[in-house]
């Protein structure tokens, strides 16, 4: 959808997502370059980005395979780091659960950024929907273009960390979840969850700590009762 057909209020999301896509594109370049420099034929990283559209899963699988861990272990690692998308789907799945093809595309394109942008849109379902589709489509294009460029660049692997892009991603997510943290229960659950994730991250495989963070929800669960007792 060209931006001029977008309603005024959705253009902010479009502009933000477009700017973010530069970062995603560069990470895509490094993925494509890394895969080809590991000796993989060009169509493997290109097909992987197009069919999977999951940066952390792709890097996880590539890392395991490159380290000689084997394809099955690589698959396991790739799926494991992806499990955080189950709570994402629970939270925003209703935004695309209409026709069969929106269900298919929406499921296929569920990512951290589209989830975060949709949740940041708040209770306005129309805006959340627009935010979801706009961000995820832009990221999809950027990720795949980046991968192809990386494959073509052959041998030249940009280090996204030099540009501080590894800080850009958490900062983006932080900015997007911040409005939701105004809710005290959500803040409490997020703080407890983040503490659990940070404490377990050094010891557990990537992907598990952020799921363990969901235990933080329990911190808010029984709140209602003591509150009533206190009152």
């Amino acid at each position, binding site marked *: 959808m060209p931006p001029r057909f977008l309603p005024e209020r959705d253009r902010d999301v479009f502009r933000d997502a477009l*700017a973010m896509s530069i*970062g995603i594109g560069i990470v895509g370049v490094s993925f494509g370059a890394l895969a080809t420099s590991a000796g993989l034929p060009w169509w*493997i990283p290109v*097909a*992987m980005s197009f*069919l999977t559209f999951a940066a952390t899963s792709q890097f996880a*699988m590539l890392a395991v*395979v490159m380290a000689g861990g084997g*394809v099955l272990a*690589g*698959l396991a690692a*790739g799926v494991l780091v*992806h499990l955080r*998308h*189950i*709570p*994402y*789907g629970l*939270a925003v*799945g*209703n935004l695309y659960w209409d026709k069969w093809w929106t*269900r298919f595309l929406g*499921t*296929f394109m569920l990512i*951290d950024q589209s*989830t*975060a942008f949709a*949740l940041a849109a708040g209770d306005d379902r129309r805006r959340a929907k627009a935010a979801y589709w706009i961000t995820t489509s832009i990221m999809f294009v950027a990720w795949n273009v980046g991968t192809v460029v990386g494959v073509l660049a052959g041998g030249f692997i940009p280090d996204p*960390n*030099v*540009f*501080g892009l*590894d*800080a*850009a991603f*958490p*900062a*983006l*997510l*932080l*900015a997007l979840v*911040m409005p*939701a*943290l105004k*809710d005290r229960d959500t803040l409490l659950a997020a*703080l407890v*969850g*983040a503490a*659990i*994730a*940070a404490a377990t*991250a*050094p010891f557990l495989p*990537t992907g598990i*700590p*952020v*799921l363990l*963070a969901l235990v*933080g*929800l329990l911190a808010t669960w029984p709140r209602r009762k003591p509150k009533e007792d206190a009152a």
Partner: protein
Amino acid sequence: MTMTAVLALAVGVFLVRLAGPLMRSRINVSERTETLMKRGAIVVLAALVITGALFADGGFAGWALPAGVLVGGLLAWRRAPILVVVIAAAATTALLRLGGIA
């Protein structure tokens, strides 16, 4: 890695993404459940912020990364536009690294 492996990952990842909405469509989503599910996603995203800011390659990421994220977080808290938040975070981390701070 073969094309079969690529397809296997694509299918695995798709099924994970499908799990959430399928579970959703099977239950009667009350307002309370809706709040809880949204809160759950926020909690996971917040945890991703912390682990992404502190750890890289299985160990502590060094100070430049969390410092950048912190600068971004402060700006977000002061209601700076998202673009400003992200660029400031990346620039802080990049400059600290340029200055020799890992």
